[in-house]
Structure formats: structure tokens, C-alpha cells
């Protein structure tokens, strides 16, 4: 069993919340969590919206280790996320983290394709910066339904050598799905693929990379109860049965997942962002 001792249940302080496209970037001073985190891991944040009970999981979108600060990129979809982005600077936030398994760094320098949908690109931006710093070639593909839903990648040169943006309606970048852009780029050679975004997008990326015989890691998103491995809520069907995505994931080898059993079955790239 993977049981990472670096995790803590702690209280952080919100130091800034800024808009990032249609999302919000929340920066939280939580040194224990920020110093231990790697890309792909997440935190579970207590939200105090009326009637809510469970902590909300959010991917860690970056850290400032020296300052002990971590960043989250939050899409407002319901009461909990709305509560979080509405909090004033200095609000104390109870949170658990860093949780789960992060992305694996490739052993040898090579080409890395990072495929993200919507706010999923935020965590890949951080991964990209680490990969670049470790001497890898990084291409970041960022997709969404519309220009508005694209995550605004700000510092292109420090996170990737190439950034390609796609929108389904063509309102920005290439028209089409981010998975189409991935298909185009697979032709010119071997690469390690990392993906983060909605499940239908991940399923499509998994299919493309499997057919191309490439290694692919995906960060899955399932509904979570405890976020810490004890309730069996967050399971994903794998070749070894249902695995807990909060502790055996959220980053998983795409070839381990039985995509045909992910509910509802998702074979190909559908809507996202």
C-alpha cells in the first residue's frame, strides 16, 4: 500500500486570489504542504458553505517553496468552489495535503507532451517547468471548449518550449479538440505523454497513446469522500480491480485503467473544458 508520511492536516492562510481567465488562482501559505508537494498531487480544502460537509479536492497548480506558498486554480461550479474564491485575503483555510501520487519524471532526457483540458492545464504548467529544468523538451497542448475556458498559460518560455492552444469553437488557437492536436504531434516520434483534464479527454488521450505505443500518465478526477484513502468512494476501474484514485492516484499509468468501464463509457474525445 502507498502510504506517504509527508502528508499533513494543517491550517493555511489565503494570501491572494486573482482571476485567471474564467478561473481563480488562489495562493495559500501552507509551508508543510508546499515544501512536500510534487506536480500531480492535490489538497483537500475545508469549505464552510452552508450545508456542505466534505473537503473539496483541488490539484496543486504550483508552489513557491521559499515562501511556503501553494497555488490552486479553481473553477466555480458549486457552493464549495464559490465559497473558496470569495474568501478575503488572510482567511485561515483548513486543508489536508499533499495528497496522492504525483507524476513520474522520465529517467532519461527526452520529449514530453503535456495535454491539458480547462483548468487541468494549470498543474501541467508546473510539471512543465520542472521537466524543462531537468533538461527535457516540453510541448504543452492546452484545450477548452471556448477561448474563455482556456487556462491562460502566462510564462510560455519557462514552462514549455512550445505551447499549442485549441478551442472547439475556434474562438482562439486551433479549432478542434486538444486530442486532435496530440494526434498531429505524435507522428514525429517518441515521447512521454502526461495528461490532466476531464475524464472524457483523458480517455481519448489514453486511446491515442495506446495505439501509438507510448507511455502515458493521466491525473484522474473522481468524486471523493475522504480524500485520504479510507472510504473507497473515489475508485477507478483498473486491470487490478477498483483502485482508490486519492491514494493510488490521482496520477495513474493510462494503460492500467479499464477505460471501457469508466462510467459512463468514454471511448473517444468528447466535450471538455
Amino acid at each position, binding site marked *: *500500500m502507498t*502510504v*506517504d*508520511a509527508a*502528508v*499533513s*492536516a494543517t491550517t493555511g492562510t489565503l494570501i491572494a486570489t486573482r482571476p485567471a481567465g474564467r478561473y481563480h488562482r488562489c495562493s495559500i501559505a501552507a509551508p508543510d504542504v508546499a515544501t512536500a508537494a510534487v506536480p500531480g498531487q492535490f489538497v483537500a480544502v*475545508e469549505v464552510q458553505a452552508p*450545508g*456542505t*460537509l*466534505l*473537503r473539496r479536492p483541488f490539484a496543486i497548480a504550483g508552489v513557491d517553496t521559499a515562501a511556503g506558498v501553494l497555488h490552486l486554480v479553481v473553477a466555480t461550479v458549486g457552493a464549495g468552489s464559490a465559497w473558496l474564491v470569495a474568501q478575503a485575503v488572510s482567511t485561515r483555510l*483548513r486543508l*489536508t495535503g499533499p495528497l496522492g501520487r504525483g507524476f513520474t519524471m522520465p529517467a532519461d532526457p527526452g520529449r514530453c507532451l503535456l495535454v491539458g483540458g480547462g483548468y487541468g492545464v494549470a498543474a501541467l504548467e508546473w510539471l512543465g517547468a520542472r521537466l524543462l529544468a531537468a533538461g527535457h523538451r516540453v510541448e504543452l497542448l492546452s484545450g477548452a471548449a471556448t477561448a474563455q475556458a482556456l487556462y491562460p498559460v502566462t510564462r510560455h518560455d519557462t514552462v514549455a518550449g512550445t505551447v499549442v492552444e485549441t478551442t472547439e469553437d475556434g474562438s482562439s488557437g486551433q479549432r478542434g479538440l486538444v486530442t486532435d492536436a496530440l494526434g498531429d504531434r505524435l507522428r514525429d516520434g517518441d515521447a512521454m505523454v502526461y495528461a490532466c483534464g476531464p475524464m472524457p479527454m483523458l480517455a481519448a488521450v489514453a486511446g491515442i497513446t495506446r495505439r501509438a505505443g507510448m507511455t502515458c500518465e493521466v491525473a484522474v478526477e*473522481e*468524486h*471523493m*469522500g*475522504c*480524500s*485520504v*484513502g*479510507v*472510504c*473507497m*468512494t*473515489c*475508485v*477507478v*476501474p483498473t486491470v487490478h*480491480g*477498483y483502485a482508490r484514485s486519492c*491514494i493510488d492516484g490521482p496520477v495513474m499509468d493510462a494503460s492500467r485503467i479499464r477505460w471501457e*468501464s469508466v*462510467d459512463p463509457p468514454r471511448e473517444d474525445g468528447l466535450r471538455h473544458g
Partner: protein
Amino acid sequence: MGEVDLSVRLGPLRLRNPVVTASGCFASGREMARFFDLSTLGAVVTKSVTVEPCAGLPPPRMAETDSGMLNAIGLQNPGIDTWVERDLPWLVDQDVPVIASIAGKTADEYGLLAKRLRDVPGLAALEVNISCPNVEDRGIVFACRTGATAAAISAVAQVCDLPIFAKLTPDVADITEIAHAAVDAGATGVSLINTLLGMAIDVTTRRPKLAAGTGGLSGPAIRPVAIRAVHQVRHALGDVPIIGLGGACTCTDVLEFIMAGADAVAIGTATFADPMAIPAAVEGLTRWLRGQEERAIAQVRGTADTERTA
């Protein structure tokens, strides 16, 4: 100000404090030991284990509801053999009493599970989950019938000398009748309550939020139902050992259960909302007791004013 005594008796067991974990909400302890020392707990009640490995139900398995949640896990577990070999040894080595929860599809299966566990060193007791409503091929829930309750409990009692706690569902007309049947069949005590069967629908998709359709409701939303069940059984069955649970989150909630008549109190769903919920409740009990006349928490049991109950 003298020192306070949090220890309680739970039938033949002596617990260092009354706060224990709820089955299915603490796995087998290892994940939670990252957050606090398990010796903080009165006891660990483990996730229900079955004879064969059980894959569980398809996701989505959980839906948050107002001050509560629905779950339909379907008793996912590795099966008794793997559990005893892989997960249990670590837990029994910790400084905390272990109460193993078992779940069967037939009375015979309960007997088989009890036989497998009776000689495992370090186990303090068994909790017999005769009330899980989530198993797909469940038929009728054991704890909805006095006859089936007696059959399951006596299958365990006949083969095993460990103390037995029968875990009951609140989804019955008269829970005291079922508690009587369990105790008459050999249960040492009862655990009250399991989840209530519920359902939630997504009005956009017009589909149930859980893949299984229905699921068990837990969390603060069910606490009044649990307090009522504990109170009824305490009054109907005299001194029977009771583990109270259902929506307990804080020290105040734990006290509510104890005043209703519980000897020990399990915290389940609250651990999902805050991994430190149990240690916080234990600390709160110590502080609370320092301000009372009683020196021992055991003296607080059943002290709620019952004169006003109809």
C-alpha cells in the same frame, strides 16, 4: 482540580476513552495513522470484511446531501484471507483495541468469518454488520427481521468466544425488538446505527446521483435518528453495552450519545470532513469533564432527562 477519567467499560472490554471509529470510515487504520497516533482512540472498528474478495459497486459511489452524504460502496474489500494476512497484522500491533467487522450474505457465512477470526491474536471483539443495505445481491437485510438477526448472531456466537456487537439498521419499525433478538441469540452488545437507505436525483440528467440508485445516508443529518435509537434501546434493554453512532462529529455530539445511553461512540463520516475529528473530540471530552461534578465519563452515561420523553 483532580484528574478526569475518560475510560469506559464496553461489556467485558475496557477502553481508554469512549471514542471509537465507525466501520468503513477508517479502513484498517494505516492511512489514518499518518495524521495521529492510533492510541488516541478508544478502539478501531475496521471496514466490514466478507468471505470472498468483493469488487464493490460501480462509481459514482457517493453523493453529498444537505449535512450528510449517501454512499453505495458495496462492501469493497479484499476478502477475509487477504485481510487477515495483509492488513490486520499491522493494526493489531498498534496500541489500540481492534474490533473486526464482518459481513455475510448468509448466516453460514457469518459463522465462517467468525471461525476464521476467533484465533487471530490481538482481536478485542467482533462487530457483526447485519445491516449493510448496499450489497447488490442482498435480498432482505438481516437486521430487518428478528429471525434472520438471531440466525446470523447465533452462527457467530456458536463458534467464537470473542465479545460480539450486532450492528443494526435504523430502517425498521421497532429497533428494540431487533436488539432483543440479537442479544437473546448471543450478542454481547449492539452498535446503533448503520446508515439509512436513501436516494438523490440529479434533476439535470434525471438520473440517480449514485450508480447503484440507492445508498446509505450518514453524517450530521442522521444524528437525531441515532440518538433516538440509542435512547430507546438503553431503556428497553437495561444494561446492554451500546456503541452509539450516526452523525457524531464533535465532543458535544459524543456527549449527546453518552447522555442518551451509549457506552462508546463511533465517529465515521466526520473523519472525511476532518481527519483530526476524532482526536479533537477526545480532547474536548477531557476539557468538558474538568468543568463537571463527575470525575469519570462513565458516570455521564444515560444522564439525559428522560422524564419528559413521551
